[in-house]
């Protein structure tokens, strides 16, 4: 017997013992290796910077300086009785903005996906545009439109209705909620629209056959089916609103409304010098609250099978014939898009064409200039920032969606005991306020053995770490609806895990994957809160460039760059939508 033959003779008994053990059985499954690979990457991405934030919250010295263990940061952050009424303000703000954004998104998605309203395709494309605009620009636009002293809309009411003063005051809690909800609507729209696209019409048709009218079908069938997507969007938007600082800084501060983020800014991040340790202690508290929402989300979506609607039969989403009401539906969609897109873009265009912004008069038209666009065209720094942002958007969003698709499959489809841990890990960095997370990333990677600090790669890692939950939500709400029978059929036909994943699941998940990709591209094109701490002069993307131009009072240039970003992003979105499953059919 040769050595090879002897080895072969021994191998069966060794393999049998191995495969009998729990670990052996676990590792013989290809999906287990995917779990370990994806879990390892996600655990590293989220735990490494999070560790530094926890460490920071429990020490009395900034990173790099030997400190002592202390709970003083927590005592200071949560021992202040004044903080608690602010939590209530933040809760009202978050709930209001999230709820209103869902309402807007649901109306818009239903009209554009499920009805025969005229121009619905155009509405669908333009609904995503506000996600491209930096939130700070949207807030500023609405201040110009609705401020009580010389807001353009208030001015029109005063002029044409003879009112003594304008009816709207942006500097109020309703104003704050309204503007934030407009900023959040595109994200909710993308998630809800993807779920509506993936829905099997046969259930709705069955309900109609059984005598339900359109409203009854919508209430009893459509709405329950897209409930996971609505909850996903609501959860995302609530946390995003509670963490937001831009809109409160511009609207809440003059209105003298204080929310939790403005307090964190005053006490920690905006204090002099910045108190990173206190900021970390606040961040850990927000993490706790956000994790409660993750738990709620998991509970809401635990009845996975109840929502499975995509089966092996080919179909198109059911379209409701609204008859003459279709024009009213288009009118409503148009009104929403005027609020979401047209008015802010018009104000931006005005700002980009004026030497400095002022309320337009007849003389204004003589002073219009293209100087701000010439600056965009002729400045190498701007060109480099566009190139950096495009790289980050395309590579970052693609990497994020690959990870998100695998993670989503593991958490929704497999029975691996630790699958819930992956979702928890993904949500940890997202639950921190952006700036606190950026500090964690900076501390974590400034001394990293691989020299990525001050390169574009650290920004890419930051984007994937921080925004992976957006991708995960978008894919999960779609994968939940894909029935298991398709995978089972593929496996019965002899396909392995990777072949099934590639040939069956990815095409089925495509609307969700593309929706997530679009969300991420639009965010990455203009992200600044994390980038600001991490970029170095050679790797400046558009977000910090916009921020510094804004800081320097160059609103015209900011608006011009914002408009160019919008055009580029719309082109990317249009290309992405062509790859979305239902559009290509």
């Amino acid at each position, binding site marked *: 017997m040769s050595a090879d033959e002897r080895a072969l003779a021994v191998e069966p008994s060794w393999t049998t013992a191995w495969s009998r053990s729990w670990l052996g059985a676990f590792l013989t499954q290809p999906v287990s290796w995917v779990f370990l690979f994806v879990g390892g990457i996600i655990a590293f991405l989220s735990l490494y910077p999070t560790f530094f934030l926890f460490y920071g919250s429990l020490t009395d010295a*900034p*990173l*790099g*300086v030997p400190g002592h263990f202390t709970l003083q940061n927590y005592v200071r952050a949560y021992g202040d009785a004044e903080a608690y009424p602010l939590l209530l303000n933040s809760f009202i703000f978050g709930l209001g903005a999230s709820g209103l954004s869902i309402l807007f998104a649901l109306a818009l998605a239903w009209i554009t996906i499920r009805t025969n309203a005229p121009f619905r395709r155009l509405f669908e494309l333009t609904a995503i545009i506000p996600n491209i605009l930096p939130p700070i620009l949207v807030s500023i636009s609405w*201040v*110009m439109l609705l*401020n009580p*002293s*010389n807001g353009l809309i208030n001015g029109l009411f005063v002029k044409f209705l003879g009112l003594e003063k304008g009816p709207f005051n942006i500097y109020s809690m309703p104003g704050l909620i309204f503007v934030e909800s407009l900023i959040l609507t595109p994200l909710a729209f993308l998630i809800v629209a993807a779920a509506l696209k993936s829905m099997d019409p046969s259930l709705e048709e069955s309900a109609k056959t059984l005598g339900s009218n359109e409203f009854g079908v919508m209430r009893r069938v459509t709405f329950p089916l897209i409930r996971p997507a609505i909850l996903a969007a609501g959860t995302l938007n609530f946390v995003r609103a509670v963490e937001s600082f831009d809109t409160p*800084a*511009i609207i809440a*501060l*003059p209105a*003298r409304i*204080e929310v939790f983020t*403005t307090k964190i*800014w*005053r006490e920690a991040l*905006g*204090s*002099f*010098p*910045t108190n*990173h340790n206190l900021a970390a202690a606040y961040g850990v508290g927000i993490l706790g609250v956000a994790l409660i929402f993750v738990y709620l989300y998991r509970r809401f979506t635990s009845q996975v099978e109840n929502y499975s609607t995509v089966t092996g039969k080919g179909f198109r989403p059911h379209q409701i014939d609204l008859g003459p009401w279709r024009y009213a539906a288009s009118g409503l969609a148009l009104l929403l898009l005027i609020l979401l897109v047209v008015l802010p873009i018009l104000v931006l265009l005005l700002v980009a064409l004026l*030497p*400095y*912004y*002022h*309320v337009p008069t007849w003389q204004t038209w003589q*002073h219009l200039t293209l100087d701000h666009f010439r600056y965009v065209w002729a400045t190498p720094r701007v060109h480099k920032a566009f190139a950096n942002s495009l790289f980050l958007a395309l590579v970052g969003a693609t990497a994020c969606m690959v990870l998100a698709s695998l993670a989503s499959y593991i958490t929704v489809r497999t029975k691996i005991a630790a699958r819930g841990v992956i979702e928890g890990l993904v949500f940890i960095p997202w639950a921190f306020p952006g700036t606190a997370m950026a500090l964690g990333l*900076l*501390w974590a990677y*400034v*001394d990293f053995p691989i020299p990525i*600090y*001050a390169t574009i790669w650290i920004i890419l890692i930051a984007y994937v770490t921080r925004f992976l939950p957006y991708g995960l939500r978008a894919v999960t709400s779609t994968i939940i609806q894909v029935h298991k029978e398709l995978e089972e059929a593929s496996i019965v036909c002899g396909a392995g895990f990777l072949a099934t994943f590639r040939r069956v699941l990815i095409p089925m998940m495509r609307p969700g994957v593309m929706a997530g990709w679009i969300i991420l591209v639009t965010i990455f094109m203009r992200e600044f809160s994390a980038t*600001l*701490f991490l*970029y*170095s*002069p*050679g790797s400046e993307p558009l977000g910090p460039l916009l921020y*510094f*131009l804004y*800081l*320097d*009072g*160059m*609103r*015209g240039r900011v608006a011009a760059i914002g408009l160019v970003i919008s055009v580029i992003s719309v082109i990317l979105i249009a290309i992405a939508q062509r790859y979305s499953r239902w559009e290509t059919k």
Partner: protein
Amino acid sequence: MLKQFSFFLALCAAIILSAAPLYSQSASLIAAGKKEGKAVVYGSLESDTADAAFGTFKKKTGIDVEYWRASATKVMDRALSEYRAGKPLFDIILTNDNPMQIMFKEGLFAKYGSPATKEFTPESIDPNLGPRYRNVVIGVVYNKDIIKPADAPKSLEDLVKPQYRGKLVMPDPTQHTTTTQWVASLDKLMGKEKSEKFIRDLAAQKPILVESLLPAAERVATGETPIAITYVKYVYTFGQRGAPLDYVRLGKFMGDGHYLSLNSKSPHANAGKALIDYFLSAENMAALAKLGEFVNRKGIYPPLPDADKIQFVEMYDLDSKKFAEKKKEYQQIFLH
């Protein structure tokens, strides 16, 4: 013939004068800096002003400048984090007095005696940081289209008169550190008792509070609010774009100094030194003044009406404990 000779002499003089700033810099330093390739600057100087200065420097020396622009607090944060981690990527820090002093105490800066220092008056040279190259002056700015100059306030004390109630915008002194400093330093202008009353009366006017000095000026430029407490230089910078702004000629203003210093572990020390030499030169000071800056050179003023008559006192340097105390105090006065 005489005419031609005079023209030749004038031409020579012009060439020598225009090249003078270069001659004042060491050729060997520039050559060494060129070998290093670039200088990296972290600063809070406005991008356009910085781009103009660094662009000219590059043209003259061939040394590239990479500029990371942020607020003074963020500049300090980043510089300290990198320094403590042992990976400082910057050569020069360029920002205002208070954070510069803190960074100096942390050992971030090397002593560099630039030849250009001698052109500054002794009182404008800080023993730790070198020459204070510019001052930022805070005053009262108003929109001439909304408030006629005759109806505008004439002093800080006028701001608390009933006719200006609801017409004033200022940065939130509980959030914006320079404004905290400004309010805390008012006793330098008014005396303790009077300033305390003024601060309470000012808060009672319910001024609109914004994030920082620039949004305050922007609101006046757009006409949303007629009067602002902000940097006086915005009258010029916004005026260049057509905004109808003017400032109140106060008896005395309040201001803060700006400095630039070399990193003690500078990765491109020669390029950094060459940049400091140019930045502090008479040529650059004149160029900065033209862009609206109050530079520290006798007889050089920004193109702002009555700029030569502006007198200012320096604001207090506050340590972190004092800042926290003052912010708490102003929270009670301005937000309750």
